[in-house]
């Protein structure tokens, strides 16, 4: 611990003089406005939202509003779309994050070594990250459209599609459209954080390994990976949760269709609230999503704890 922090809060006895009282209050003065707005706009609505999930609450039918116990949850349990959306959320998150990490790692490894034009290369390959999410969605939606884009033609030419058609309207493939857009958009983020992490691996470790006769792959396997993993778990955790929570690409590209085959939970929540105006049901869906993510986070932190030992 640094020895230079002023320590009004922990200097033992409760503050006596007015100056000490003021110093004790000072950090709260800096914090208060920001924390207040976060609490007001995030914490309060969260609690309110959970309470909605126990109500019959459809905006168009104000007369019918009232507490309904677990009715929304019961409805959800027998809702086919919910289960489909749940499975799709898992699929969507898994493939998106998996490819973001592996492509991000590849990019970070490329960027770690100097080569002619690296600086310009870096700012160009990082550009997708600057693209607003809704625009990435629209952009890829257009790219999958055989009328204005060569992409479907290319896909069929290399045998990934039977004919140049729009995968977004194919019930079996629709989800992969938004997944592609998500990967495209998210690779730079992982590349940046992995690059930072790679640079923090002490170089003498590699030298020691080289002296011990390790090949490049062995050094990567036994030094780089163990070094990166604990450091990256938090980043992976936050990103996974973020991806799982984010409906924009699906909303923009497929709207969950065709026939809910690319529906995910957050998008289902959003469309229930935005289109059907069924706030009660939307809140129940959102609460389930949140509980699942909390369990996932605890699980990942537990793994991190084990890795840290």
């Amino acid at each position, binding site marked *: 611990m640094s020895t230079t922090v*002023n320590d009004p809060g922990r200097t033992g006895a409760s503050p006596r003089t007015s100056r000490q009282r003021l110093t004790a209050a000072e950090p*709260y003065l800096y914090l208060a406005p920001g924390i207040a*707005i976060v609490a007001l706009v995030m914490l309060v609505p969260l609690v309110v939202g959970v309470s909605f999930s126990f109500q019959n609450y459809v905006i168009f039918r104000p007369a019918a509003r009232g507490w309904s116990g677990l009715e929304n949850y019961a409805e959800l349990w027998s809702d086919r779309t919910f289960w489909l959306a749940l499975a799709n959320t898992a699929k969507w998150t898994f493939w998106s994050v998996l490819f973001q990490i592996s492509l991000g790692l590849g990019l970070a490894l490329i960027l770690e070594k100097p080569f002619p034009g690296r600086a310009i290369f870096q700012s160009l390959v990082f550009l997708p990250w*600057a693209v607003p999410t809704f625009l990435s969605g*629209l952009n890829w939606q257009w790219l999958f459209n055989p009328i204005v*884009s060569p992409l479907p033609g290319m896909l069929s030419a290399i045998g990934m599609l039977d004919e140049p058609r729009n995968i977004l309207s194919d019930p079996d493939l629709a989800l992969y459209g938004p997944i592609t857009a998500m990967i495209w958009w998210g690779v730079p983020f992982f590349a*940046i*954080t992995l690059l930072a992490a790679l640079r923090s691996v002490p170089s003498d470790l590699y030298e020691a390994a080289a002296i011990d006769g390790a090949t490049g792959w062995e050094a990567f396997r036994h030094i780089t990976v163990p070094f990166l993993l604990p450091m990256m778990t938090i980043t992976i955790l936050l990103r996974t949760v973020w991806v799982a929570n984010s409906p924009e690409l699906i*909303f923009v590209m497929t709207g969950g269709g065709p026939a809910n085959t690319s529906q995910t939970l957050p998008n289902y929540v959003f469309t229930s609230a935005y289109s059907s105006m069924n706030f009660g049901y939307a809140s129940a869906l959102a609460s389930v999503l949140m509980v699942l*993510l909390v369990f996932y986070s605890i699980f990942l932190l537990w793994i991190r704890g084990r890795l840290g030992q």
Partner: protein
Amino acid sequence: MRIVTTAGIWLIRFAYLAFALFPLLWLLRIALTPDQLLYTEGTTLWPSVITFENFRYVIEESPFPTYFLNTVIVSLGTAAIVTVLSTGIGYAFSRFRFRGKTALMVFLVITQLFPIVMLITPLYQILAPVGLVDTRIGLVVVFTAFNLPFAAFLMHSFFEGIPRELEQAAMIDGCTRFQALIRIILPLMLPGVGATLGFVFTAAWSELLFSLMLISSEAKKTFAVGLLSFVGRSGVDWGQMMAAATLALIPPAIFFTAIQKYLVGGLTAGAIKG
């Protein structure tokens, strides 16, 4: 053998570059294609003739300039407010020890795990009676809260990079703590402040869902909402749409390129600590 490896590595580099840039180039390409060539030359790499007609139409005859202006106002407002507030939080976390500090930090992390969609219905409920629905201020308030936690961590890591002795020296030199912050620390943190500003600006520029939910009148629509309603209309004009999209891309791309270096610095510190 070595030549093959080198060529292979360059091939991979170009593959990354193509993957990153092709969608954006395509956007530009369609925007520049004259309407009558769109279907005949729809999938060739570059049209035989290009035109700026689509851009002209979007700028002069469509409502997009209004959307654009609204987005600029909301994004700049959010970025400015978030930067000020996150400076306060980052500073308090970095320089003070106080009761409840860990709890507050954990709270801010946890907000990052919330499904944002969860907040949509209650926020609508809360903002409606105070008259913040269908206003730009309402959007600024909401975006501020969403972006503040991450910005606070970013600022915290920038503050950690400034030696404490500097402000102590300033306090001995006659400054109050606040003067030391303004005159000594913040000037040294300009890159960090810039990174935070740019990051939040980009994030606010991208927001779609809450703008959809909270904004209904044409005059207050942000770019995202406007573009999406444009897309939803029947008889899509591809060229105009992509011209509008290209324009929407410019501000965040500029901001982002400018701050990239500093952002990497802030994330680096964060990644290593995490």
